[in-house]
């Protein structure tokens, strides 16, 4: 079931909310939790009931291992290893088995064949959550948790499908609070507002811009030569699509959680405003970064064993982070590019510190230049991320860099005058600058410009809602940029009208539900 579908908004959500609070009001807290688990499983099974068994077995298995790890028995370490290996084995089978076989076939020329394995929804998310739980249980950082609470920690529908990747420390204690079982108008209003902002971002902005991205990537994959205008248009459109899609989804998840009185962790903090790649990863998919940091990078040694080992650890973390997004070499290369950029960025910071520079005292121009470089890097690497093959990615990147010639609009001929022959010598021509007619680029660039303005200059959902503690703050970077001039959300009729109009606009645009991009990861 999709958050951006009529059945979810007008049937599933009201019934689930009403059931939970009606049961909770009668002080049947265990029944209320059971109801929420049942609804969450129904939500999960709507896609493919066959995989309900898989998630249930995974929950039972991990809870049982957690109980063993939480005790003082002699086989704790062996249980941890078994738990982690089995979780990764399950993920590996469903997500990477075909990828592995294809790669072996390509390298060795063999012809092994596996039947098509359908990737169970959300397996990457619930596997990571439970591995974190097991590791913390082994470290003695978990308390004794109720089984029903544990089930809800894994299956709670707002975060089940595409995160945020929640941590047991921030979720399980909330289920034990009496206050969540009483309907709070305030929490409902805050939750509904965040949900509506997320729905608008997903349905109107992300789906709206996708029509400019998809044909360009399709053409690049088919080997069609692209103009520089089309190539940049498609790449920018996809960058904005994935940002508004995923951050919209995260907003919806956070809003839905809040309707039940549950706070979820922040997952996006205006990542396109980042001025370097380190900051980007503090702002983009923050709960994945947190997981990779706490359960991979730090256990590998983090930065404790010298700079060289730190860079190696960064590369390993980002390579696996890339692979987590999908079973394909394009994802591995995307992760490697980000790992390399992170290593360079840390190296650059170390060098500046060694020269006595204070990093926090950058000039405005320096920040602007750094931000622009970072943005171009993000856009270029998202081309590799989105492309189905290296051929398609290279075709698009080559067109973006002017490698397939630069064709400027004919209207500029008067302005360029005698420069034209010189420009022609260097591959810059005048003519039909969008030869493939893949989209209406006059509309496309207006839309791209508007979305860039929102991404760069507007406050994000958490900043608009900052008086209502919308989410756990997982942000570890520089202080959040505040917008004193921008009105803060308040529980007032004026804001009610704005939110109602955004909600109706988004719901009125749900002519056909599209999937969230991050469902596939």
């Amino acid at each position, binding site marked *: 079931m999709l958050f951006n579908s*009529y059945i979810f908004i007008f049937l599933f959500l009201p019934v689930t909310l009403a059931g939970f609070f009606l049961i909770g009001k009668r002080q049947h807290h265990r029944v209320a939790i059971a109801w929420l688990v049942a609804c969450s499983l129904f939500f999960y099974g709507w896609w493919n009931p066959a995989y309900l068994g898989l998630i249930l077995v995974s929950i039972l298995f991990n809870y049982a291992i957690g109980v063993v790890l939480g005790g003082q028995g002699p086989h704790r370490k062996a249980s941890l290893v078994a738990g982690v290996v089995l979780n990764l084995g399950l993920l590996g089978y469903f997500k990477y088995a075909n990828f592995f076989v294809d790669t072996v076939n390509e390298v060795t020329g063999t012809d092994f064949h596996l039947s098509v394995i359908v990737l169970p929804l959300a397996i990457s998310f619930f596997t990571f959550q439970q591995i974190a739980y097991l590791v913390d249980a082994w470290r003695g950082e978990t308390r004794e948790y109720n089984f029903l609470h544990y089930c809800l920690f894994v299956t709670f529908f707002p975060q089940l499908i595409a995160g945020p990747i929640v941590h047991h420390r921030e979720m399980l204690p909330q289920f034990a609070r009496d*206050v969540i079982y009483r309907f*709070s*108008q*305030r929490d409902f*209003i805050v939750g*509904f507002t965040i949900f509506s902002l997320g729905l608008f971002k997903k349905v109107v902005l992300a789906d709206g811009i996708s029509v400019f991205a998809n044909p360009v990537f399709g053409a690049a994959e*088919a080997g069609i030569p692209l103009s520089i205008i089309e190539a940049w248009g498609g790449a920018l459109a996809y960058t904005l699509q994935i940002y508004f899609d995923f951050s919209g989804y995260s907003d919806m998840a956070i809003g839905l959680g809040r309707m039940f009185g549950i706070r979820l962790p922040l997952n996006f903090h205006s990542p396109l405003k980042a001025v370097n790649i380190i900051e980007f990863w503090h702002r983009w998919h923050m709960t994945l970064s947190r997981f990779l940091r706490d359960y991979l990078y730090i256990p590998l040694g983090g930065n404790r064993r010298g700079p060289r080992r730190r860079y190696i650890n960064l590369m390993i973390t980002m390579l696996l982070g890339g692979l987590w997004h999908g079973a394909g070499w394009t994802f591995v290369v995307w992760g490697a590019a980000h790992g390399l950029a992170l290593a360079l960025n840390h190296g650059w910071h170390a060098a500046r510190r060694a020269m006595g520079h204070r990093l926090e005292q950058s000039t405005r121009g320096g920040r602007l230049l750094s931000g622009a470089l970072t943005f171009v890097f993000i856009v270029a690497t998202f081309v590799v991320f989105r492309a189905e093959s290296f051929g398609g990615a290279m075709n698009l990147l080559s067109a973006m860099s002017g490698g397939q010639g630069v064709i400027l609009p004919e209207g500029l001929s008067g302005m360029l005058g005698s420069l034209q022959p010189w420009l022609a010598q260097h591959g810059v021509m005048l003519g039909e600058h969008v030869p493939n007619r893949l989209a209406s680029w006059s509309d496309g660039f207006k839309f791209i410009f508007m979305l860039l303005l929102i991404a760069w200059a507007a406050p994000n959902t958490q900043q608009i809602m900052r008086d209502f503690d919308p989410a756990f703050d997982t942000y570890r970077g520089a202080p959040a940029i505040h917008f004193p001039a921008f009105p803060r959300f308040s*529980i*007032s*009729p004026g*804001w*009610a*009208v704005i*939110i*109602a*109009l955004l*909600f*109706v*606009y988004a*719901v*009125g*645009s*749900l*002519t*056909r539900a599209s999937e969230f991009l991050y469902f596939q990861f």
Partner: protein
Amino acid sequence: MNSSQEYQEKSGETRKFLRALILTALGAALLVVSINYRVDRYYVFHAQEEPFMEFLEPNMRVLKTNYLETHCSRFDAVIFGSSRAAAIRTDDVNNAFGVAAYNFGVATGNLPGVLARLEWLDASGCMPKTIILPLSIDRLHFTGRPNDLLRKEHPAIVGDPAYAREFLLSYLGVDAFFSNLKKLMDQLISRPEPRFRYDPRSGDVEYLWDRELKLEACPDSSSRTDEVTIGIFVDYLQRIESRVRESGSRMVLLWNPIPVGDQLAHLDDARALFGRLQGTEQLIYRLPPGDARLFDSDQYHDLGHYKPDLAAAVFAAPQNRVPLRQLLNELQALQNQCDAQNDSH
């Protein structure tokens, strides 16, 4: 619950917020739905049956399917195809073939759409005895389903209950709302001229626009469609043919009389297409490529849309029905002339 929360809930702020939220949402939704239903720019909710209505933007798929749903027994021939075919006059077809034809040509109509319509007609017990199918050599790549409001397929043809719900909701949604608002503004301020005249009893469409054209006898450049795309096109054509054959009906192919320059620009595609069809002996109605009318801009509304008289000329004479091989040879001969001209220049 902290004191600020309690204060807000007790002071009624949250209640006021919820009241304003619900009232605004309901009011806005009601406004959107009622304007969409009332204005109905694409004539989805208000099928019209008055003769020769004038329209700005009708959804012909909806209007024509609605009509055929209740009147198909009147017809024993159906003209399929795109907006080009929609301008073929049924009277001309009736006279040429001795049938009672309905024009089912729709904007951006393509072969998957023709197949879906044939299946629907067959399932409804309305399979026509004669199917007239015009082919456009410059539209081989049109094999997807158009999904904008103006061209959405009628739910009866798609036959999927989920699509039927989505279809109606899309005409009640926000995109339709802005489109309908534009129509209201047009009615009040700019009052644009109608672009179509439509007769629901025959499906005939008359285009009320003319663009200035300069037709070239020889193409500036040629274009080639990839083999996969041509393969998809051929596959659909063969599925249509076998469907027609199984029903005991006959299929008449027409070669759309687009300007010769455009026909020659797609000569490679024609060669590839005919080569993939079952032998080049298959017959098709065409206007000889040397016919002067194919060079005459007065015969066209715009580059793609020919006028009804030109369409009638295609099937007016029995000798216009030739094997695909002959059509290919005629096109090649013209192309040779163009090449010779280019060489002499």
